[in-house]
């Protein structure tokens, strides 16, 4: 009953739309759901799809929202499809060729999932091939379980900070934790999100094909042992695995990768973390909160390479220096031997530049967080003459795969970690959506500079766009001026109320036209705050316009409000008819 109400509502909202001839619909329910069916290009799919949509509506109200919303946006394409009764599997060059699917996605991680959902929205008959578990790295061995651990570490840290508690007038005695309980929380979260992901795809009618996917040739994929399916377009979304440098022996107990660490099977007294990027930093946050001491091993001369230097420095001052952490920079870990025969884990370090042996560390455990390697083995790329570059699938800016000769491989795309453009779950998803836009007839190039990134330490770090050195380099090359504005969390009421005034937001912009080049935030809930900036970049909003947007008081978002207001855009640049930048 619940969904019939929803349907009638959908029908009302669709009254302005010319109705499709009733004969194509079976029964009252279907005709009342015209707002959905309008999206669907062909009759056979239409019928099948509507039936499944019913489940979708029952399953979650958000599915309904998505459907009706997209209907509004999709007016033009609907008109295009309206007259055509031809099957969706219309081949190239007008030669009808029958495919099993419109779109096959190899890999059901966050990227594949995002692409699949958008494909369904666009009316494509979609299948997703998964050789392992649905959800991929992010859900099962990455962002998701790590957030559960970080939620625990954040609270532990707060409860252990006598000073912080006292300042708030709270009294807490002896905060402690149960390792298994924490590990279970992470595992339960992953399971829950995995089920949500699976259900959402099933509900929308995405076929989940189980088995390892291999490309046999153009538009042809094998999954499992001998099932062959064809599709008009194929997206590779096979993701990545932890990268383990040579000489490091991972035993999964004392020398581990993030895959093992997320299971939190033990909390060592002293753990060395090789690599001080996002993964290493987040784990240092978890381990130190749970009582471990941490030693960072970083090949570059600075901790936290890749972050804006100023933010990195501040982050180091807050996240590293006062904690039970020390570090070795400018060194490679050439050999790491797991603990055995009563000996500790040993780590041999050499100087990154001179290659001379520098030191040997003895610790209780080592976490390898040196980045991630694309997972493209066994994908059958040789069948279509594609050669990977350091394992990554080469693509152009539209995620179209290029072969050994640099030519585009038709109907083949690669998104996410496997192409190495930007190894972030949400970037993969955005790339997937971009590809679906393209295969459904709308050219789309994703602006990677508008994709935010976040590191979920306490406090968090987030960023979008260019770092200051990158911006200055670009400015030098292209001959424009760069300015920087900064605001502190210390001036923010909400942050002070939380007694978390430590933090900085930094805006890098062009004073001549007000374009936002990059925003970097270090502070309470930085990961949630960045989106105002990333949306502005994606939509091409200029500072002189966004500075008039109103923020609720008192909220952390006022940090960004202050930031935009602190920027000094030259007068003549004010209020040009802001033209959205191609995104």
């Amino acid at each position, binding site marked *: 009953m619940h969904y019939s109400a929803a349907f009638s509502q959908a029908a009302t909202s669709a009254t302005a739309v010319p109705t499709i001839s009733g004969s194509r619909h079976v029964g009252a329910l279907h005709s009342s759901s015209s707002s959905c069916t309008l999206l669907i290009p062909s009759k056979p799919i239409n019928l099948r799809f509507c039936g499944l949509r019913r489940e979708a509506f029952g399953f979650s109200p958000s599915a309904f929202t998505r459907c009706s919303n997209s209907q509004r946006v999709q007016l033009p394409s609907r008109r295009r499809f309206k007259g055509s009764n031809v099957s969706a599997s219309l081949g190239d060059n007008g030669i009808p060729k029958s495919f099993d699917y419109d779109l096959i996605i190899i890999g059901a991680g966050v990227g594949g999932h995002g692409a699949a959902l958008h494909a369904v929205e666009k009316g494509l008959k979609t299948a997703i091939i998964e050789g392992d578990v649905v959800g991929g790295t992010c859900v099962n061995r990455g962002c998701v379980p790590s957030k559960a651990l970080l939620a625990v570490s954040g609270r532990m840290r707060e409860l*252990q900070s*006598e000073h912080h508690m006292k300042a708030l007038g709270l*009294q807490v*005695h*002896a*905060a*402690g*934790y*149960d*390792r298994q309980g924490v590990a279970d929380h992470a595992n339960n979260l992953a399971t829950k999100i995995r089920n949500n992901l699976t259900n959402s795809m099933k509900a929308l009618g995405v076929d989940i094909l189980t088995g390892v996917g291999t490309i046999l040739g153009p538009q042809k994929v094998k999954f499992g042992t001998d099932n062959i399916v064809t599709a008009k377009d194929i997206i590779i979304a096979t993701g990545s695995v932890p990268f383990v440098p040579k000489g490091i022996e991972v035993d999964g107990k004392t020398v581990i990768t993030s895959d093992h660490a997320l299971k939190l099977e*033990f*909390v*060592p*007294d*002293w753990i060395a973390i090789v690599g001080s990027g996002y993964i290493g930093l987040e784990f240092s946050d978890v381990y130190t909160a*749970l*009582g*471990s*001491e*941490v*030693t960072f091993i970083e090949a570059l001369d600075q901790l936290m390479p890749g972050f804006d230097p100023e933010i990195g*420095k501040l982050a180091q*001052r807050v996240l590293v*220096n006062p904690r*039970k*952490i*020390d570090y*070795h920079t400018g060194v490679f870990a050439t050999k790491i031997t797991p603990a055995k025969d009563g*000996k*500790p884990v040993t780590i041999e370090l050499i100087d990154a530049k001179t290659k001379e042996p*520098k*030191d*040997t*560390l*003895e610790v*209780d455990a080592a976490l390898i967080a040196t980045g991630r390697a694309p997972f493209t083995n066994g994908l059958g790329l040789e069948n279509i003459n594609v050669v990977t570059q350091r394992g990554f699938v080469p693509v152009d800016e539209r995620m179209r795969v290029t072969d050994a000769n640099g030519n585009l491989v038709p109907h083949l795309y690669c998104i996410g970690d496997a192409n190495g453009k930007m190894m972030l779950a949400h970037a993969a998803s955005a790339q997937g959506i971009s590809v679906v836009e393209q295969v459904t007839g709308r050219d789309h190039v994703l602006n990677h500079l508008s994709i935010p990134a976040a590191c979920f330490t306490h406090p968090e770090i987030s960023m979008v766009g260019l770092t200051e050195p990158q911006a200055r380099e670009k400015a030098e090359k292209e001959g424009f001026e760069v300015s920087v504005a900064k605001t502190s969390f210390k001036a923010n009421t909400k942050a002070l109320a939380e007694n978390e005034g430590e933090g900085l937001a930094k805006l890098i912009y062009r004073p001549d036209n007000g374009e936002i080049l990059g925003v970097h935030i270090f502070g309470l809930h930085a990961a949630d705050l960045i989106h105002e900036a990333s949306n502005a970049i994606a939509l091409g909003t200029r500072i002189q316009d966004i500075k008039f947007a109103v923020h609720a008081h008192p909220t952390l978002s006022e940090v960004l409000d202050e930031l935009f207001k602190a920027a000094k855009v030259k007068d003549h640049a004010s209020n040009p008819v802001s033209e959205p930048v191609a995104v």
Partner: protein
Amino acid sequence: MATLSPFLSKTPLSNTPTISFSSSISTPLKWKSITSFSPSGSSSSRSRRRIFIVQSKIREIFMPALSSTMTEGKIVSWIKSEGDVLSKGESVVVVESDKADMDVETFYDGILAAIVVPEGESAPVGAAIGILAETEAEVAQAKAKAASAGAAAPASHPVTSTPVPAVSPPEPKKVAESAPSGPRKTVATPYAKKLLKQHKVDINSVVGTGPFGRITPEDVEKAAGIAPSKSVAPSAAPAALPKPAPAAAPAAPLLPGSTVVPFTTMQAAVSKNMIESLSVPTFRVGYPIITDALDALYEKVKPKGVTMTALLAKAAAMALVQHPVVNASCKDGKSFTYNANINIAVAVAINGGLITPVLQDADKLDLYLLSQKWKELVEKARSKQLQPHEYNSGTFTLSNLGMFGVDRFDAILPPGQGAIMAVGASKPTVVADADGFFGVKSKMLVNVTADHRIIYGADLAAFLQTFSKIVENPESLTL
């Protein structure tokens, strides 16, 4: 980025040449500046201003203290380079402290003659990091001096009284990092290394007791003479975690049918205090006191609202006035802390808990005020409205179980105080007086527990003698 006040300080007048860096420059300069001064006859207003500091035409730029906790600073960048002309108020250098990066500006005009501490290096607070010359003429000389003194530059500096900041900060860091590379490795955990640096403990003087002989934070604290108890509290929880068994598992298995009731906050606090009290060496001294006079006084003043508690507190306070050491406490194991006020804490049992409302300045308030105050405190304790200073500011504690007929007991000394008095019931007892006459008198036994680090047997005995005199001749209590 905040701009800090200048840290250009003039080099001190030094008549007695020492090996200090500044004096080696300023002494020769004395004549130099004077000679160069008179002929040049630069702007007269400036010369008047400078009249007192003639000899300081070459100034050192010192590492500023940018925060109360800063001991050393790192030069992030020199905004000005050698030879640049500086004017008052200009930012010269960016310094990184333990908290932030800050611009340091100059109060003086001049020429940046030499940079003593280059970018990326650190120097202790107060050390010279650059040399400022007033005129071109002095630049070369300042430079030469800076160069010759260069190596030793940060070593000694005139302002800080300690001549030891010779240990330039980057050094210990290196030591800590490269220490393990020695012939036979000394391994220290990251936090242990931080503590070594913080407490200035030599790594070689510490014996590692951790796994594989590594130096743990506890080892360093022990070597630094810090009671590890401090670190136990915060780290106990995490430390126990890897092996959750020992902390959590009770030694004896639960008997069937027994129930486990967790402590209330108050009970947990009591428990914590009681465990803490074990670290204090205490002893006890008892004393019999005849209370007939006190009882008689009590009967008299009772209608005016005076309670026995107030009487005893007042008596104790008056005795403490004469024996300040019993009102003292030992905070660090090294010293006496004499308290300015006599605040008598009185133990009160309340809803399965225990709290000690404090009668502040019990020696100064009269009996009636004290009694009134006590009533208020008890009322507040009941309604859980006691403010922290109303229960944790005691300097001496009184515990009375006399009303239950207890004739004597022995109290545990609360942490942070020097002594606690346990008061038993006053009971009719046959006593013989000095002349050999027997009589029946009310006798009460009091028993004081004290911290023997600061209060010795004779101190307690003398205090108790005074106390008993006051109780046996209680007229003074009503004054």
